[in-house]
């Protein structure tokens, strides 16, 4: 697999006067697995949303799978988004629906309205089997018919991953996928995302607080702070000083957050 998945050059972003990204250039190739590390508010989420063509860049160029995001029409934007699975930090599940219905929503961007409605209300046997397979892959196939609100935090996270799988994307982007689970579960989610990406040769970008997990599972780590990239290296090349510096916040930064 050749070519770049995401290519940002000199991107600046401001939200209501607050700078989110200050001149970021970053290139991620297809099939690469990258961890974005850094304190909260450093621009990781903005970066992921730029990758998924969900966020308009303010200045600079954003190319997503070879195409300039700024030149895409709304139809093209939707097509791109339907090929990229973005798992937000809050997961974005519809808690009043059942697990299989939430997984089925992964294909909402690839289908016309009537067929989405059908897959929510009267899913075909073949489709249920496919959804069951996705849930099996993330280890919660027995929750197929359960209401999502009754699932634990870890199970909800896995449901969101299954939804991303069912989407059949070219890339999976996960924003802080381990923020709401205990360390053992955090590790298993990160391992699962890496396995899936490798298995299906997907591009994977994950934002992580947990530097230790990033180090053990990802061949490439991008360290960010205050909207800028501090380092972009393989884990073995990153010194301990660089890591501690990343989180060594000044007093004003601590109060800002």
């Amino acid at each position, binding site marked *: 697999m050749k070519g770049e998945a995401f290519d940002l050059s000199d991107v600046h972003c401001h939200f209501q006067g607050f700078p989110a990204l200050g001149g970021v250039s970053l290139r991620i190739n297809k099939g690469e697995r990258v961890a974005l590390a850094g304190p909260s508010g450093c621009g990781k989420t903005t970066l992921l949303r730029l990758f998924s063509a969900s966020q308009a860049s303010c200045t600079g160029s954003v190319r997503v799978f070879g195409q300039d995001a700024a030149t895409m029409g709304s139809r093209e934007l939707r*097509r791109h*988004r339907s090929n990229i*699975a*973005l798992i937000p930090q809050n997961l974005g599940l519809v*808690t009043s629906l059942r697990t299989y219905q939430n997984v089925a929503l992964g294909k*909402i961007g690839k289908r016309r309205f009537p067929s989405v409605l059908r897959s*929510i209300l009267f899913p075909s046997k073949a489709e249920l089997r496919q959804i069951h397979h996705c849930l099996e892959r993330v280890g919660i196939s027995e929750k197929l018919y359960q209401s999502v609100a*009754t699932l634990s935090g870890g199970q909800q996270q896995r449901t969101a991953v299954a939804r991303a799988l069912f989407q059949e994307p070219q890339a999976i982007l996960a924003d802080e996928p381990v923020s709401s689970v205990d360390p053992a579960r955090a590790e298993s989610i990160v391992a699962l995302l890496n396995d899936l990406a490798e298995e299906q040769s997907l591009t994977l970008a994950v934002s992580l607080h947990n530097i230790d997990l990033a180090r053990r599972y990802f061949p490439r780590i991008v360290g960010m702070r205050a909207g800028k990239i501090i380092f972009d290296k393989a884990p073995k090349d990153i010194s301990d000083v660089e890591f501690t510096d990343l989180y060594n916040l000044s007093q004003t930064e601590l109060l800002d957050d």
Partner: protein
Amino acid sequence: MPSKFEIQSSKFRVLTPRRSTLLVLAATGLVCAIYLKLNPAQLLSGDGWKIASDFFAAALNPALEYEDGPAGAGWDPLLVKAAKGMLRTFQYALMAMSISLIGGLIFGFLGSHRWWPREPGRITKIILHTIYISTRAVMAFSRSIHELIWGLLFITAIGLSAEAAVIAIAIPYSGTLGKIFSEILDEQNPLTFQTLRDTGASAFSAFLFGTVAGAIPDLLTYTLYRFECALRASAVLGFVGIETIGYYIFASGNELHWREVWTYLYILIIVMIIVDRWGASVRRRLNAHTAAACIR
């Protein structure tokens, strides 16, 4: 930082905002009572005491037959008449709610801004605001007039008919449902909608499968509650001549047949309790998963 002295003095302030509000409310109540010449003794003067005691004594002894003697030929016995009246009351309420539900969903959608694009153009913005404000105005108008007054209006216009009763309830109820529905939709977590948009969904699909689907338990709970209100409204429409159980209560009451009145009241109360219990069980099942989520 307030100084020590300021903290001390605020402790001894006599007129805090809360106290002065309560004082003003109490004074207003007193002025109103004097202006209306309210006199509790009036309740028991004249026949008041006797009628009240007759009425409540009859509660222990509801009528099973007409108080003027058994029904003549061609007339339903009292209990059959009461059951038929109750059934009609129920039918009016059900029909009115069916129409209100459709009206409420349309109003609720148009009166919500959850489905609006994030950065609408100038023209789109004007159109959206026009829709929003006119929907709010229509809803406010329809529900600020009570169903009894709508009933009188329609009875005057098209005569005493089933249509008049149903429409009289459906109009204000569409407005109320629409107002609450739009608020429920606007209170939904915007991130679900956003997630589906980020997956490539159109705004319409994201609204329906994210926002509306997420709101279903709340929408249903409120609709069930409104159905109970519609039952009461349907009964009350009897007082302006629609042949529901309220009509019989009114007629028997006029003749001081309190035992008959109680028969009708008991049937109404029993049906209300059944509907309430049924609604509660539906709510419990709907909210079972939400409760489980809270425990977690």
